[in-house]
């Protein structure tokens, strides 16, 4: 029943997200108007190739740059972007893209196969383009076959590259602008997208203006020409209540992360609209450090999974915003396997206590389980402040109820990340890995990802490694889907992580702002957005 409700919620959200892709019947976009968006956090720079993982920078880059491919928000299938068609060779080592005609960068330079090749060259050689280069995988060379055809030659098959080509981080950039601005290109972005850079005030706002020559919007949009909005301003407003107050005063048209306890009130108010978009990739989860006893015992991990209530977390920490997660992939990720939900342990404190007893951990006189004279006391690492503290306090309470004692250790972000990577903790629920390709599971599950990458559970399993390696090189989508189903089953059985809930990005906007679309990573797209008069 809970799963059906979750699926209905996701479908509703997806339909809302389509409002920009397929505007309501009879509602033609009205050209003109300026939208001001309030964001909870700013951006470091807007050079897509030098992106280092900062989520909010993508939010802006998605409206400045056009990727070669796009994912259909309804089906997650890959569709043409700047490339009107694409082909993958049988062995997966050659990807051929045929570009649309007439594409130009914001500075007027031509975006043809040579320009795309030069952009890829930059990604492959720029020392600061590490993340994006890793996303593309083992590229051997990129060749411009003719003015409209680009061929990417891989050293070996690498399935995630197609998803990488659908992200703004691999989009072509104007090399003339790169040469002109050098290291400052990130403060003076030049792409091919529906909006062009106008002005940047550090720490405060970024102003984009409509690209009047835009004629190559992806096929997922009804309006393929210039954006209706003439100006788009992003403002940094870190405080939740201030952002909401600005929206209610009309100073902002659109905000992300409205105060959770105000969402119900905003829904009832016809002046505003609320949209909630689930993020793909790995949901919010509890990381269990499998390298530290007693968490190396699967029975203890299973007991912990039974001890925590997902509904309780959503209700008490997130005011009901979000959906429970029962798999290592969020339901909006294309390789999500719904059948896994049955395998994932559910909230059952009695079962948790019974499993602990089976593992030799019996309740002591102080209500804490003990084995061989040792009490079980775990270290729970969390980010300081706000919702993270509440979340971990709740987890601590759930564990206490089944006899597991714990100590909360709060650290600021950089120190917490350091401790996570070093394995200096027992449990932690800070991690989320947003990605539209299921290859993200490689980062959290492969044994080579322990340490520098995101296998913070320090989990080693040769079968899992093999499955993840095979899924990376499988070009056929149905084969990949089958492999990821096996991978998700293995995660559900071994429990190095316990998925909690799907990160849902809520957005609140004035109800006269229409046509905002959301891509598969929940990034709002303003290609067809307009202000209804």
């Amino acid at each position, binding site marked *: 029943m809970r799963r059906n409700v979750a699926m209905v919620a996701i479908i509703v959200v997806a339909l809302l997200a389509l409002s920009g892709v397929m505007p309501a019947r009879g509602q033609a976009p009205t050209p003109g108007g300026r939208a001001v968006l309030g964001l909870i956090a700013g951006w*470091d*720079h807007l050079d897509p190739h030098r992106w*280092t*993982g900062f989520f909010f920078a993508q939010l802006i880059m998605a409206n400045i740059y056009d990727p070669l491919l796009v994912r259909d928000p309804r089906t997650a299938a890959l569709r043409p972007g700047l490339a009107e068609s694409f082909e993958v060779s049988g062995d997966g080592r050659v990807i051929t893209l045929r570009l649309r005609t007439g594409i130009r960068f914001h500075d007027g330079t031509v975006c043809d196969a040579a320009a795309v090749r030069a952009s890829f060259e930059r990604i492959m050689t720029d*020392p*600061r383009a*590490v*993340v994006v280069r*890793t996303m593309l995988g083992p590229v051997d060379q990129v060749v411009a076959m003719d003015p409209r055809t680009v061929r990417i030659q891989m050293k070996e098959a690498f399935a995630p590259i197609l998803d990488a080509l659908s992200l703004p981080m691999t989009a072509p950039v104007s090399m003339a602008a790169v040469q002109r601005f050098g*290291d*400052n290109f*990130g*403060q003076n972005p030049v792409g091919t997208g529906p909006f062009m850079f106008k002005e940047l*005030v*550090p*720490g*405060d706002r970024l102003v984009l203006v409509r690209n009047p020559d835009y004629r190559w919007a992806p096929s997922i949009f009804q309006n393929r020409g210039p954006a209706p909005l003439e100006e788009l301003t992003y*403002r*940094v*407003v*870190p*405080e939740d*209540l*201030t952002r909401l*107050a*600005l929206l*209610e*005063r009309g*100073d902002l048209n659109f905000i992300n992360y409205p105060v959770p306890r105000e969402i119900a009130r905003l829904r009832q108010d016809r002046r505003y609209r609320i949209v909630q978009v689930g993020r793909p990739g790995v949901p919010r989860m509890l990381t269990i450090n499998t390298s530290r006893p007693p968490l190396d015992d699967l029975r203890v991990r299973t007991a912990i999974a039974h001890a925590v209530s997902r509904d309780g977390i959503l209700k008490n920490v997130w005011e009901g915003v979000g959906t429970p997660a029962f798999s290592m992939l969020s339901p909006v990720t294309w390789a999500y396997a719904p059948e896994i939900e049955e395998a994932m342990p559910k909230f059952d404190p009695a079962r948790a206590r019974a499993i602990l007893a089976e593992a030799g951990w019996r309740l002591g006189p102080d209500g804490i389980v003990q084995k061989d004279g040792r009490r079980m006391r775990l270290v729970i690492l969390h980010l300081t402040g706000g919702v993270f503290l509440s979340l971990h306090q709740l987890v601590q309470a759930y564990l206490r109820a089944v006899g597991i004692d714990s100590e909360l250790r709060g650290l*600021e*972000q*950089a*120190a917490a*990340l*350091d*401790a996570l*990577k070093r394995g200096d903790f027992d449990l932690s629920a800070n991690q989320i890995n947003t990605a539209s390709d299921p290859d993200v599971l490689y980062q959290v599950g492969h044994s080579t990802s322990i340490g*520098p*990458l*995101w296998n913070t559970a320090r989990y080693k399993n040769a079968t899992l490694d093999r499955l993840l390696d095979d899924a990376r090189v499988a070009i056929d989508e149905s084969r990949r889907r089958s492999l990821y189903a096996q991978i998700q089953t293995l995660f559900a059985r071994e429990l190095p992580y316990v998925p909690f809930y799907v990160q849902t990005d809520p957005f609140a906007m004035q109800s006269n702002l229409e046509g905002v679309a959301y891509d598969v990573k929940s990034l709002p797209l303003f290609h067809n957005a307009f202000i209804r008069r």
Partner: protein
Amino acid sequence: MFDYLRRRLALSLLTVVGVSVGVFLMIHLVPGDPVTVMLSEFASPADQHALREELGLNKPLYVQYWRYATSALRGDLGRSVRSNRPVISEIAWRFPNTARLSLAALLLAVAIGGAVGVLSAVRRNTVFDHSAMVTVLVGLSMPSFWLGLMLMIVFAVRLEWVPVAGYEGWQYLILPGITLAAAPAAVLARLTRSSMLEVLNQDYVRTARAKGLRRMTVVLKHALKNSLLPVVTVLGLQFGYLLGGAVITETVFAWPGIGRLVVDAILARDFPVVQGTVLMMALGFVMVNLVVDLLYVYLDPRVRFA
């Protein structure tokens, strides 16, 4: 007097150097790696090593500090590891916003705190005096975060008398200025009151009254100036503190000042920005206190003729 000023100047320079060394050491010793911030965790050990070499992060700390200090003397505070913008530009953009807000808050604090303090001292043990001191206590105890949000909800959202947030014109200074002024005004009120009370009990003030001078003349011309010494000291400290950027007020009102800049930089381990901003804050603090020291010369003849 000149000896006094020379000593103050020398101490000020030592303070700035000491602060820069302290911050340099602290930011390099806490967990968190700027190379990971710049390149991400996907960078290979070879990539990370190459960037460390380029930035000189492999050198001993004293060598890194020397390079930083000599560059800083030339006006080069390095580049942000996140945005790659020059640190001096990051600060130059934001410092005027902080200065404007600080000055507004200070003027408000002086006007309100000074007036309340003088009036409370002159009307000691009256209803006004007791009410004022209770209000001052509330002002001191109230968290600025809460005060700012309450002012915003009442005056900006409900009554729409003032803007919610932003910094484009003088009207945007009102709410953050009041929020920031509350605590310093409270401190100044209490200090002015106690300093005035001490001076009002002096013989020369009694003599001035006995000569038949008007009350306000006695208070403002004879007593106030002599009561200002401790007040001016605290004022200098308060202004220096305000110039450091009130991050909470800046966050609540989306005010792009250096307080938010330095906190964001600390969380992101953006070393150059942290070092540069703290250096600027220390310089600002030191200069304000130098001005305070010069004011002493005017206020206290004993310093002038020392």
